[in-house]
């Protein structure tokens, strides 16, 4: 029993940062616009991140190499540098989006000036990182992010037409560019690249070795299944409440309203709390990822476990990334808009992250017996092909739909 609990807690900690502002924005809007029709895209994206996270975690456990270590090894300096620049730009936009989201939630909870909360949110994250060790940071955001379960409860409480919900899991395409834009958005929001950057670097931070492979597999299967349920519940509650009345949930606060509708003020507070910890965790994950990538590509010492004294360049770059993201939010661009750009540009940068991972994970000279088996290989390359198609479609769709504005 004790080990089961320990495993469960580990899985939940690893789940922190999976649901982020991208999922909340895209899934809520997808529900409002297309009711339950896009649930299949959520499942497709969640399965994709599970496949790649498992692979990245396995590579990190067996070889001690996180993602950008692998990218430099397989793409070389020139192409690797292009991947680094693209990923850093996307990660920076993501940090800005999460920070903005955090500030919006704080503003809804304690009514005051938005820009004040942006600065307070950034300072708060620095304090959390300063006070807690790596595992503690993961646990704080992972456990508290579970407040999002209020959306699952809300979905059940609403009692939607479950037949219609089930129909949503059957993939369907339509010629509407707005629909296709949301297919890409919902899929990509689940597959944000910072998640695997962070997850694989975290494996090194926590000294994973081959004995951690079981934990890695459980994180991928059970953790992401739970994450997928939470992500689907966002679509369902929004589809139930907003779709019939044609509400456009263009700000983050609207995403929490279904919980208020079901459970009153308590529901609202739980939902806002859940969003706050998810988005806060994602802000930490994505800002760490930006510094992990830079340090790993250039061969610097890195890691929260090393501390600023042993890894000063890593620490300084983290503070710089956080500061730059803060400036982006303070520039006055709507965080929801930043979110949409970060998700769409992430799709474009995804292939460069995933190709080297696939190459190393399948390479027996590195991985020995833990190289990709037939299942991982088939799923990995199928998803890679899918990601390539979406990467080509993402920007035209963004332009054609005017950023999802229709």
């Amino acid at each position, binding site marked *: 029993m004790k080990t089961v609990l320990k495993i469960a807690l580990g899985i939940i900690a690893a789940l922190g940062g999976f649901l982020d502002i991208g999922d909340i924005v895209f899934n809520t809007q997808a529900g409002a616009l297309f009711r339950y029709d896009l649930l299949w895209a959520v499942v497709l994206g969640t399965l994709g991140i599970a496949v790649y996270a498992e692979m990245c975690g396995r590579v990190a456990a067996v070889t001690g190499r996180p993602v950008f270590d692998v990218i430099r090894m397989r793409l070389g300096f020139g192409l690797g540098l292009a991947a680094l620049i693209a990923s850093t730009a996307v990660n920076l936009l993501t940090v800005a989006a999460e920070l903005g989201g955090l500030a919006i939630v704080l503003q809804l909870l304690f009514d005051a000036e938005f820009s004040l909360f942006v600065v307070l949110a950034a300072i708060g994250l620095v304090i959390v990182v300063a006070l807690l060790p790596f595992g503690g940071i993961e646990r704080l955001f992972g456990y508290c992010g579970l407040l999002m379960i209020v959306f699952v409860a809300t979905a059940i409480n609403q009692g939607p037409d479950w037949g219609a919900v089930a129909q949503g899991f059957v993939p369907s395409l339509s010629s509407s560019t707005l629909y296709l834009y949301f297919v890409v958005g919902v899929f990509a929001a689940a597959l944000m690249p910072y998640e695997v950057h962070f997850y694989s670097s975290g494996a090194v931070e926590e000294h994973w070795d081959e004995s951690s492979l079981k934990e890695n597999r459980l994180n991928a299967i059970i953790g992401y299944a739970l994450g997928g349920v939470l992500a689907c519940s966002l679509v369902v509650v929004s589809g139930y409440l907003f779709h019939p009345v044609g509400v456009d949930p263009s700000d983050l606060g609207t995403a929490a309203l279904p919980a208020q509708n079901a459970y009153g003020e308590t529901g609202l507070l739980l939902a806002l709390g859940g969003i706050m910890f998810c988005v806060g965790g994602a802000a930490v994950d994505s800002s760490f990822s930006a510094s992990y990538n830079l340090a790993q590509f250039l061969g610097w010492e890195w890691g929260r476990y090393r501390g*600023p004294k042993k890894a000063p360049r890593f620490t300084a770059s983290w503070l710089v990334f956080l500061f730059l993201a803060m400036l982006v939010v303070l520039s006055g661009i709507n965080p929801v808009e930043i979110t949409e750009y970060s998700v769409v540009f992430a799709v474009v940068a995804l292939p460069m992250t995933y190709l080297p991972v696939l190459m190393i994970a399948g390479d027996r000279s590195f991985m020995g017996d833990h190289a990709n088996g037939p299942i991982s290989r088939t799923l990995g390359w199928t998803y890679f092909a899918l990601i390539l198609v979406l990467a080509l479609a993402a920007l035209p769709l963004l332009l054609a739909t005017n950023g999802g504005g229709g």
Partner: protein
Amino acid sequence: MNREPLSVAHRLLDEQILDSEGRRCGRVDDIELRGNPPRITALLVGEGLYPRRLPARLRGLARRLAGPERWGANALRIPWEEVDEIGASVVLRGKAEELGLGAADNPERWLVRRLPWN
């Protein structure tokens, strides 16, 4: 070191370098070959070498941004004899400071060393 054949481009170039104490202190940015038949005589490390790793069209621009290669400063030569092991990373026999590697991670240079999360 074991004597099994090793693909240089596959397992050596761009690899992470660790010193004898496990400190990460750079990557194999280039490899020096000498003699006939050519033998690896040194690993070359440092940001001054980055421009030569870029495609020819970008090299001029990168050189102008990064400045020239200055041996002993932004481009270091690690003699092959210093290499202890090539496994998951390239492990050196000596400490990073003695070889001049990872000097930019010297805490004395950085204010962040005083941050409380050490």
